């Protein structure tokens, strides 16, 4: 994406999603062909940003979909955990590590 040192990842979560994907592939959870097909499906979905600014949103959607297809995590479970992490973040005072256990509804 860049040889001049412009950022490759827009935000840290994008780098983490990237790293998880590389790691899962290395562990044989999916092949790169499967991954490429999943990502391609998301990138080409109607309504995606023209300028590619939501590329890593697509990346995360593709990873979620592939894990669901592999029977590793279903969409409801992922969404439930996502909301739980958001409540945990809100409930965590600044300077403390954000932990899932901080979700008041858990």
């Amino acid at each position, binding site marked *: 994406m860049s040889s001049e040192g412009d950022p490759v990842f827009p935000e840290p*979560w994008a780098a*983490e999603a990237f790293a998880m994907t590389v790691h899962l592939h290395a562990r044989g959870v999916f092949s790169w062909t499967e991954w490429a097909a999943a990502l391609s499906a998301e990138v080409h979905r109607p309504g995606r940003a023209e300028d590619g600014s939501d590329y890593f949103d697509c990346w995360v959607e593709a990873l979620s979909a592939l*894990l669901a297809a592999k029977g590793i995590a279903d969409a409801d479970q992922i969404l439930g955990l996502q909301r739980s992490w958001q409540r945990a973040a809100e409930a*965590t005072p600044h300077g403390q590590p954000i932990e899932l256990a901080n979700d008041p509804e858990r």
Partner: protein
Amino acid sequence: MDDHHYDAHDDHHHHHDNRYSDMQARVRALETVLMEKGLVDPAAIDAIVETYETKVGPRNGARVVAKAWSDPDFADWLRRDATAAIASLGFTGRQGEHMRAVFNADETHNLVVCTLCSCYPWSVLGLPPVWYKAPAYRSRAVIDPRGVLAEFGVTLPQTQKIRVWDSTAELRYLVVPQRPSGTEGMSEAELADLVTRDSMIGTGLALAPEAGR
């Protein structure tokens, strides 16, 4: 004067300071599932992230610093309104956070802390290093900044005060290191090569001209 020193500043931020965007929370959720299934080892993820860290963006911050060294008007703007001055170079955060630039001088050295990677100026510095996210760094940087700097190989004169800045989700800091001597006549691009990531967090100094080549 707007003087957010550590103690006074921290009091204002006890609630709703932390927010995860949908994508941030989604990635956490995936990580949680994968860890429960034993499919992801956090250390391996950190290692991959470290590998890519240098490709992510400290060069943006280096360009800001090099421009401030070369252009007094820009330096002045950066001091007054870092958010706008930095945005003028095309570096903006998607979360709308504010930036403040703190300038090192003979009297004062600045050091930035926060345990949360969401409180890191990633639009100019890229990904936070693993040590920056460690609780030990934050607590020790507050209690014994001189000792922490020594571990990074930085020894400051006793006469130079150390000021510790605590980043928040809304306000993030960029340290502008002192311009090294012997750099007169260097171009902005050459100067930017002397500006390390750590020098913009305050755990390092800008490189001497020979070292940057």
